[in-house]
């Protein structure tokens, strides 16, 4: 199965993909912006400040998704000793980190007019900050450890430590009293967000996912080119 992850074969696709992903991203992002800024209604309670949600929530989803993916690839890379998996993890991390920061900053901007504070040390917000620190340490580890073997091991440990935080982030609003409100969207039950607001939210999530994919492909190609320049035939 792993032979399909052979970088030489993958590079044919990944080197051509970014421009198509970029075009798709621009289209979806434009639709998302028009939907969320103009066409979607204002909230009955928060009026126009609800529009921050269309950036805040997708950014938070994407950052959680990316960290989970990084962990999956790192652990599989470690167990099966597949260096390519580590490259995928490494290339995913920057966009995850950026979306984490975006989620924190937009949350802060949203918190001021609605809750009345920029920052609160409640479980959801604090655990999200811890995730940002994990991203930071993860990215630093790749810079600090020059030898591949060391970097692989250290980053795997960091991701395993960090993944415990993901369910804590998800369920913090249900387990403890938090200032942050509980989740509006449930897979199993009806979501407490009106359809006219749900649609732009999904479009924006798709746009952010495409953006992450774009950045990932660019980073990944860079990594592959670096390896080719070192004169290594394969990983």
């Amino acid at each position, binding site marked *: 199965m792993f032979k399909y992850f052979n970088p030489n074969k993958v590079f044919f696709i990944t080197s051509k993909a970014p421009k198509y992903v970029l075009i798709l991203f621009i289209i979806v992002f434009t639709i998302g912006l028009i939907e969320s800024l103009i066409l979607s209604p204002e909230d*009955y309670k928060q009026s126009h400040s609800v529009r921050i949600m269309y950036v805040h929530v997708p950014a938070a989803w994407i950052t959680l998704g990316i960290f989970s993916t990084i962990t999956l690839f790192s652990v599989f890379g*470690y167990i099966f000793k597949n260096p390519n998996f580590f490259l995928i993890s490494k290339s995913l991390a920057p966009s995850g980190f950026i979306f984490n920061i975006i989620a924190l900053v937009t949350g802060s901007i949203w918190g001021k*007019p609605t*809750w*009345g*504070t920029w920052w609160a040390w409640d479980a959801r917000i604090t655990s999200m900050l811890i995730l940002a620190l994990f991203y930071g340490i993860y990215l630093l580890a790749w810079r600090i450890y020059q030898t591949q073997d060391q970097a692989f091991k250290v980053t795997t440990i960091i991701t395993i430590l960090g993944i415990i935080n993901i369910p804590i982030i998800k369920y913090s609003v249900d387990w403890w009293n938090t200032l942050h409100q*509980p989740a509006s969207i449930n897979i199993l039950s009806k979501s*407490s967000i*009106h359809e006219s607001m749900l649609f732009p939210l999904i479009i924006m999530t798709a746009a952010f996912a495409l953006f992450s994919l774009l950045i990932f492909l660019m980073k990944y190609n860079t990594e592959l080119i670096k390896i080719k320049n070192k004169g290594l035939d394969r990983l």
Partner: protein
Amino acid sequence: MYGRKVKLRFFFVLSIFVILVLSIFLVLKSLEENVVYFKSPSEIKNSPEFQKNKLRVGGMVKKNSILINSDEINFIVTDFKNEINVIYTGVVPNLFEEGKGVVAEGYLKDRNFFIASKILAKHDENYMPPEVKAAMEGK
């Protein structure tokens, strides 16, 4: 079908993960007091000792309980079992309203009176356009 080393590494990662989950669970369990952002009026009334330090109390603003004087706001925080009177001087957030969630930060005067130095609005997870809300209330 996989080599011995692969299996070994798999169980190594798995055991690290299980140990971590257990330890984090125990740590959070013992720190629960500090993880919760606010206490409910019931928890304050039923706590064996009177708390002198700064704390946060959260719940719903009781309907028809907001009294605005020239220099202070009085209201009742309720969790539908117990209530606590809150006195506050200052600006309230936009979403502070009767029948909505609130978190007050401050000190207890006694078990029924709370002097707040900061008011935060806790909004719920419902989002809908005003027309839908009006239609729902019209029913």
